[in-house]
Each structure stands twice: as structure tokens, then as C-alpha cells.
């Protein structure tokens, strides 16, 4: 049975009142719940959230340290930091990135070859971050930017400290350079240390002493918003931001004399080659020149692709460090050392005569090892053999000594071993021996040592290769009569804040003791005869000098001459001509400087290389006492 319901307003009103009271009760309860939650967050958990909010508002902005300054031995600045203008790109403000890039190219502010690199750089950063792309603008570029500024939205001109090398190309191979940090660089350093630093030492002293030069970065907390952009709190609100000042890197004092270096480089007069000058008393490298050189400012400036290609594709290889990475046959420059070995092993006496007929053959062989002087030198004693650079004398001596003894004594002189100079990348060259040959060739038949190979080692040819640095070190060893030092380019570190100087002690290597100390003088006298004796090969070099020079010329073969041919300088193309070498020290009785020079494809050592050494000697020894 269905009940019919009618509307009863009084009942409905009563019910509504009830429901309303319940609803208000629920509302009040929920309000308490909300207040309770707010209380939990704001009172109970307040400290926790306050800390979180403080962490939210500060971002650390790096303050890069000033890189240490580099001085030469006389205190002249050769690497410094100068305020420079740089162009930075802020993608967000640039609007159309492609248009901005093409404008930059059109206005000559961006190399066309670098467009891709800059685009990638800009896209890899957050849109509001400034990406430096052209460092160290010159006045002309600044002017061009100023003229076209309105057409370059998002391109900003900023100042910052940049590396500058006031002497430019001079000494660039020793000094090295800094450049923008690459992925490779980041793999070998602690990224943290480079927070905010854009450059790193790439070669030379700049790289080897990177840790000292870099300094310690500082930071500054900046107030930022959630997107990481600098923000400002309303006036009067203390943000309590922290700052730590950066600590500048150590200044370096190099052993190079930059003016002497200039003399040396100018003496090359545009020819290729290298020269090292060492103070034999402590191993200080006074001159370290590899020519042609390059301008390290290009790298510090952020080298463009086309500039870099121009350097790497230059057939003269300006970036190649000929002093310590170039390995050349030492040629006749090692004859004094060979003579010394002969005396030491007692296989020859200074007064023993050898007849030079213009060639030498091993017993039972028809192969003729030729002397550079076709008609022969005649009867030679040791001094004459060194002075006139008689090949036959040393062919014979080498054969008498045997390769094992040559290898042992030359290794003692530092050949085939790194010199231990304080910059990275030097090569060791090859001091050959039967043992070495076994490791150097894959096939059995190639590994056999032939007696003829010993013969040519006697005049610094064959498998024997050496760096200029090794030759200079060996020459310094003769100069000190047996006391070698590790060559070095840096003599002291200076803390710029305190002025405290940390001198690096010269590192003396184990002294070479001869059975008979008088043998040193025999060899030195023979070398003095080279520049002053009646038939000395470098007679012209010694002429007019106020000091005595002990030297030895050398010629390193680039092109082998057949058995019956005669080497004719004019017929051989310039690139295939012999390298000219000269090693010397002066004054012979109390040496202050030892030098090894190489002029690539310079021909005969005395003519091309020796005058360079003379120019350096004059500049160094004749200058007014400091």
C-alpha cells in the first residue's frame, strides 16, 4: 500500500534547522582541522621550513681568483692580467638567435667558422645566462660593436680580467698559454676549483704551474628567484648573504731572460729551428726558443677556428715545440762526448793518431763510410779530430768502443732519457743499442744489430735522435766538468698577498766522476780549438769575442746521400737540406752559459747555427753586471 506524502512546511523547517546546526558544527570542526594543520606547519615545524626557505633564496655566484703573474728572471712582467672587454650573448634577450649570429658575422664580430660553436655554447646554457664568446676585444671591435649595438639585442659588452702576454710571440713555447677550459681539461682537474674560472693553462709554464697560478676561488651569495635570476627583496630586508673573497694565485719568477730570448729569436732571422741556453751552475734555462713562434694572446683571447687552422696548417708548424718535442740526429755535436767516452774506457789516447783518407770501412766489408771531407783530413789526433770534425776518426773510435759502451756512456750523459725539465711534454729521443732495437722492431730479422750501425752512431747519426734540451744539458755537463742539473724554467714562487718568496733550490743531479779528471780539460780544450784553432770548424764564431768559447758544430742529415753521390746543397730542395747544429759554452774556463742551437735545413752548422749562439753569448756575457 502506497502512502501519499504531502508537504509539511513546519516539519521541513525544523529539519532544516537541525541540519544547519550539524552543518555549522562540521564547518567549525573543519576550521579547527585547518588551523591545526597551519599550527603544525608554522609552529611545530617552523624551524625546519625556515631553514628550507633560507636555502631557497641564495645562490652561490663565483668570484674567480686572479691568476698569478709571471715575471722573467730580471723581474719583467711576461704574463699579466689586464681588464679586457668581452662580448657576451644572452639568448633570452637576443630574440632571434640566428639573426643575432648572422649580424655578428656581418659586423665582423664573429668569425663565420665559429658560428656553430657559439650557437652550441649559447644553447647549452640557460637562456638568461651570459655566454662569453669574444674575449679581449680590440678598440676597433669595440667601436664596431658600439655602432651596431642597437642591431644586436642580447649582445652585451662586459669587462673582466683577462690574460695578457706583453711580449707576444717571444718565449711563447716556454711560457705556454691559457685557453678556454675544454672537456679534456675538465677530465684532469677538479671541477670545483674552476667554478667561475674560464681559462686554464694549456702548455708550457702556464700548464705545469697551473696549481700555483690558479689561486683559490671565492664566492658571493646572491639573492635569486626560483628561476635562478638575480632578484631583489623589498627595501630594508636583510638577506644575510655570505661572501668569501678569492685568493690570488702565486706569482712565478721564471729563469728565462726575456730580452736575451728576444736576441736569440731575432738572430734566427725568420729561419726555423730552436735554441736552448742554460746556466750550467744551476740548470736555469735562460733561453728557450722554438721558431717560428706564435702569439699566445690569440689563445687567451679565445682563438677563432680560422686563426687556429692557420696555425695548425702552417707548414712551418709554429705550435710545434722544437726545443723539447723535436728529435733530431745530434750529428757531430756529440763528438766531444764520444772522445770523452774513448778516454774513459781507455781505448784511445789523446795523442793517438788516426789517418783519415776520406772514408772508413769495417774490416772485411767493402761498404765505405764517407767523411764529409771527400779528400780526407789526413793524420788526426783527438784535438784535431774534434776541431776539424773528422768523421773517420770517430767511425773508428765508435767501432772500437762498441755499441754497448757507447750506449752506456751516452745514457750517463742523459741521451735517451728525459731531462726532467719542469714543464710537461718533453720527448726522450733515442739512444740506440741492440737491446733497444729488439723492442723497436716487430720482425726478428729487423732486430739484428749490425756493426755498421755502430759506426754511424759515432758521428751522431743512424738511429740516434736527441732533443735540443738534451744537447744543451749535455753541453752544460761538459761546461761544469761533470756536474749536471735538472733544467728548470721557474726559480721562485711569490705569494702576492704577503710578498713571501718561495725559492726553488736548483736540483743537482748525480755528479759524473771520471777515472781521470784531466780528461775533462782535454775535451774542453778541443772544443775551444773548434772556435779558435787554426782549422776550427767554427772559427768565425770565436773571432773578436772577449771570452773564450768551447763549441762544436754539427750537421744532421735529413736526406740520405747514395754511396757514390755527393751531397750538393743547391740541388737539394730547401726542406731536405741538412739541419745545422751548434753546441757551445762560454767562457770556456769558467762557464756561465751553455747553448744548443738548431737551424732546420740550415745546412752546415758553423754557418747557420753558430752565429746565433754568438749573438746570445755576446748579449749575455757582455751586458753590464746587474
Amino acid at each position, binding site marked *: 500500500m502506497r502512502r501519499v506524502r504531502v508537504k509539511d512546511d513546519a516539519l521541513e523547517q525544523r529539519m532544516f534547522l537541525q541540519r544547519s546546526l550539524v552543518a555549522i558544527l562540521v*564547518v567549525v570542526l573543519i576550521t579547527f582541522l585547518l588551523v591545526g594543520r597551519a599550527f603544525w*606547519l*608554522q609552529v611545530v615545524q617552523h624551524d625546519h621550513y625556515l631553514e628550507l*626557505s633560507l636555502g631557497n*633564496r641564495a645562490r652561490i655566484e663565483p668570484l674567480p681568483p686572479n691568476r698569478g703573474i709571471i715575471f722573467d728572471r730580471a723581474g719583467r712582467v711576461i704574463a699579466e692580467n689586464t681588464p679586457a672587454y668581452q662580448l657576451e650573448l644572452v639568448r633570452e634577450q637576443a630574440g632571434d638567435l640566428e639573426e643575432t649570429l648572422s649580424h655578428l658575422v656581418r659586423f665582423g664580430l664573429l668569425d663565420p667558422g665559429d658560428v656553430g660553436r657559439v650557437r652550441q655554447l649559447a644553447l647549452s646554457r640557460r637562456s638568461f645566462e651570459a655566454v662569453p664568446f669574444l674575449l679581449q676585444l680590440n678598440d676597433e671591435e669595440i667601436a664596431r660593436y658600439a655602432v651596431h649595438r642597437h642591431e644586436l639585442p642580447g649582445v652585451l659588452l662586459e669587462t673582466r680580467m683577462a690574460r695578457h702576454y706583453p711580449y707576444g710571440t717571444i718565449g711563447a713555447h716556454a711560457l705556454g698559454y691559457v685557453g678556454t677550459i675544454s672537456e679534456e681539461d675538465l677530465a684532469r682537474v677538479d671541477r670545483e676549483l674552476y667554478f667561475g674560472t674560464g681559462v686554464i693553462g694549456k702548455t708550457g709554464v702556464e700548464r705545469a704551474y697551473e696549481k700555483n697560478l690558479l689561486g683559490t676561488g671565492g664566492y658571493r651569495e646572491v639573492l635569486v628567484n626560483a628561476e635562478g635570476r638575480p632578484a631583489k*627583496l*623589498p627595501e630594508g630586508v636583510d638577506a644575510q648573504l655570505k661572501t668569501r673573497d678569492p685568493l690570488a694565485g702565486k706569482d712565478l719568477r721564471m729563469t728565462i731572460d726575456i730580452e736575451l730570448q728576444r736576441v736569440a729569436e731575432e738572430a734566427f732571422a725568420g729561419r726555423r729551428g730552436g735554441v736552448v741556453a742554460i746556466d750550467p751552475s744551476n740548470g736555469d734555462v735562460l733561453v728557450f726558443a722554438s721558431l717560428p713562434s706564435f702569439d699566445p694572446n690569440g689563445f687567451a683571447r679565445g682563438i677563432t677556428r680560422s686563426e687556429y687552422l692557420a696555425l695548425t696548417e702552417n707548414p712551418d708548424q709554429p705550435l710545434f715545440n722544437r726545443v723539447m718535442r723535436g728529435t733530431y740526429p745530434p750529428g757531430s755535436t756529440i763528438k766531444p762526448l764520444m772522445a770523452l767516452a774513448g778516454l774513459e774506457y781507455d781505448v784511445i789516447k789523446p795523442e793517438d793518431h788516426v789517418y783519415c783518407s776520406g772514408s772508413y770501412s769495417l774490416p772485411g766489408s767493402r761498404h765505405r763510410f764517407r767523411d764529409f771531407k771527400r779528400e780526407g783530413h789526413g793524420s788526426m789526433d783527438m784535438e784535431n779530430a774534434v776541431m776539424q770534425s773528422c768523421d773517420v776518426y770517430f767511425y773508428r773510435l765508435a767501432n772500437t768502443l762498441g755499441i754497448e759502451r757507447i750506449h752506456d756512456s751516452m745514457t750517463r750523459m742523459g741521451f735517451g732519457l728525459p731531462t726532467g725539465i719542469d714543464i710537461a711534454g718533453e720527448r726522450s729521443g733515442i739512444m740506440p743499442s741492440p737491446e733497444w732495437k729488439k723492442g723497436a722492431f716487430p720482425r726478428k730479422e729487423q732486430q739484428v744489430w749490425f756493426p755498421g750501425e755502430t759506426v754511424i752512431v759515432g758521428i751522431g747519426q743512424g738511429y740516434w735522435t736527441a732533443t735540443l734540451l738534451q744537447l744543451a744539458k749535455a753541453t752544460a755537463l761538459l761546461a761544469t766538468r761533470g756536474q749536471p742539473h735538472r733544467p728548470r724554467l721557474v726559480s721562485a714562487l711569490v705569494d702576492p698577498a704577503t710578498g713571501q718568496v718561495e725559492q726553488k733550490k736548483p736540483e743537482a743531479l748525480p755528479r759524473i766522476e771520471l777515472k781521470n779528471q784531466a780528461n775533462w780539460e782535454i775535451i774542453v780544450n778541443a772544443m775551444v780549438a773548434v772556435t779558435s784553432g787554426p782549422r776550427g770548424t767554427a772559427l768565425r764564431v770565436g773571432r773578436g769575442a772577449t771570452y773564450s768559447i768551447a763549441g762544436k758544430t754539427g750537421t744532421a742529415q735529413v736526406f740520405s746521400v747514395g754511396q757514390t753521390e755527393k751531397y750538393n746543397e743547391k740541388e737539394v730542395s730547401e726542406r731536405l737540406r741538412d739541419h745545422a747544429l751548434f753546441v757551445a759554452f762560454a767562457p770556456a774556463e769558467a762557464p756561465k752559459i751553455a747553448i744548443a742551437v738548431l737551424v732546420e735545413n740550415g745546412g752546415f752548422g758553423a754557418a747557420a747555427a753558430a752565429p746565433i749562439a754568438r749573438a746570445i753569448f755576446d748579449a749575455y756575457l757582455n751586458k753590464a753586471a746587474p
Partner: protein
Amino acid sequence: MIYGELGDSRTKRTVTGMARLLRALRLDGMLLSALIAVSLFGLFVLYSAAGENTSLWLNQLARIGIGFTLLVVLAQVPDHFLRMLSPVAYLIGLILLVIVAIAGDVGKGAQRWLDLGVIRFQPSEIMKLAVPMMCAWYLHQRPLPPSFRDVCVVMLLVLLPVGLVAEQPDLGTALLVAASGMIVLVMGGISPLYVAGGVALIGAAVPVAWHFMHDYQRQRVLTLLDPQSDALGAGYHIIQSQIAIGSGGAFGKGWMNGSQAQLEFLPERSTDFIYAVIGEELGLLGLIALLIGYLFIVSRGTYMAIQCRDAFARLLAGSIALTFFVYACVNAGMVMGLLPVVGVPLPLVSYGGTSFVTLMAGFGILMSLHSSRKLVG
């Protein structure tokens, strides 16, 4: 003392003069004062939340003007006219929702807006009022408590627009529209058994709802359970707003001094998350003041509903008052990490014209219903 000096009569005359004006305009002075007070509080907070963007603040000021004007206008409408209008408004709203579903403008990745050339508006806003009106209209002619059949019809009337709004997808508005309809049912005297059954049904529907949810909606639910799981994505809002509120402490960091808000760590700080700005800058004190304001508005609204003369007026007025509270607690709950992030603005405070104007329209209707009680015996 001052009143004494000026003379009792003058003060009394001013007060009674004001009361007479309010009565003539069919307005409730207490409710209006509370609404104005909370709106001014909102403007004060918005000034800080908007940062340097003063045009945003001026916009809101203009909308508040429009809102209160609409309130006064709607208060003049007689209740029988409102009753008559109810099915029409509901039908128009439903049609507009369908149109939006088919050809709506795409705004914020969701189809909500209808572009009428002159104005763009969200038909779902109409439904916030049209749905309770329709429900009240349907129930007032029938004996209460409603029969099972009536409950089913009302449910249908509610779920149809709610489904369309949720599909847009605008979960927040859908929730509020559903709440406004359900409140009519509850206030209409629906049996507590139905309520319990409904809750059970909702519980059972969760897996089903999950299935039909949009990815971003699911994400919001998951994020609520563990905000840290996606600290830079979906959880970012919740984490940042809790940091803002928590770091505010009992007394706040001071107006315009909230680092979370001023440094833009707090997302949507002038709209849905403005509650966190209050918490950060004005502290627990500010939040309690706001909640007291809300509590007063709801209580006064409900009290006015009780006084209404017929079922339609009572049900509609009660729904308007209580739905207002649902707005407030959903927003506060979401900002404080108690509820999932659904796009519900903080009533009377958040920047955003449509929501404010709709609320004011609702209170205008409430005042009309309340005033109508004395005019006819």
C-alpha cells in the same frame, strides 16, 4: 564619550539611516560587511603577492567593484523570479557546457573557455549557481525528506554537468559544482543512510575514477601522498607552498617580506596559492583571521537560510553559504598539503575575476532570498 558629546540622537539616526538604506536595497548588513572585510584583506595580500605588477592588482580591484555591483543587482530580484529562472539557467548552462566540450577554446591545456567575441567566460561558473538552483527548484515542490526517486533525479541533475566539467578537465570546479548540489540534498533532509551509502559508493568508485582520470590528475593524487617523489615536477607546488607557510611562523615574515613569495619560489602565488602567501607573510595569525572571516560568512549565511520562508529559498541559500566554505577548505587543504592540488581559488582573495564575480552573484541571490521572507506573508 564621543557619541555622548555628539548626542545620542544623531548617532542613532545615522545608524538607523544606514539600516534603512540596507533594507531598502534588500541587503544584509552583517554579511555584506564580512564580505567587504575579507575582500579588502584579499586586496591587501594580493598587493604583496602580485609584486611589481600593479595592473594585476587594479584589475582585481575593478572585478571586486563589478562583483559587489552584481551582488546589489541580484539582491533586487524577487525570489519567485529566481525560482522561475532556475530550470532556464540550468538548461542554458548545460547547453553551453556541451558547446564548450565540442568547440571550446583551448586555455591552459584544458577546454574551459567560451569565447563570445566580447567576453570570454567559463560556462562551468554558471553551473556553480545553476546546479543548486535547479536542485532546490526540483525539491521544493516535493515533500521532504526526498524519496529515493527524487534523490536519484537530483543526483542525475548534478552529475550531468559535473561530468561535463570534469571532462574539460577541470576537477576543481567539478568538485565544487557537485558539492553545491549534494549540499542541497543533505540540507533537504536526505536520510543519513543515503549519505553513508554515498560515501561508501565514492570509496568504491575510487578505482573506477582512477581509471578515467587524466594523467595530470593522477599525478596530483600521487604527489599528495609523497611530494618529494617529484620535487621539481608535480610535487614542486606542494613543497614550495608548505615551505612558505611553515617558514612564516606564528607571526609571519611581514607584509611584502615573504622570500618564498617575493622571490617567485611559490608558484601561482597570486591565484590558487595565495593562501601560502598569507601564511608566509602574515603567519598563523593571518590565517586564523582569514578563517574566522570565512567562518562568520558561512554562519551568517546559514542563519539567513534558516530564516527563509520556503523550501526553495532555504535549500538554495543554505547551499550557497555552505558551498562557500567548501571552496575555502578545499583551497586551504590543498595549499597546506591535506588535499590533492585541484585548481580551486581561495574565495574572495585569489586573483581571478570569474570566481569572484560568481561568488558575489551567489551572495546577491542569498540576500534576495533572505529579504523576500518579509514581503509576502
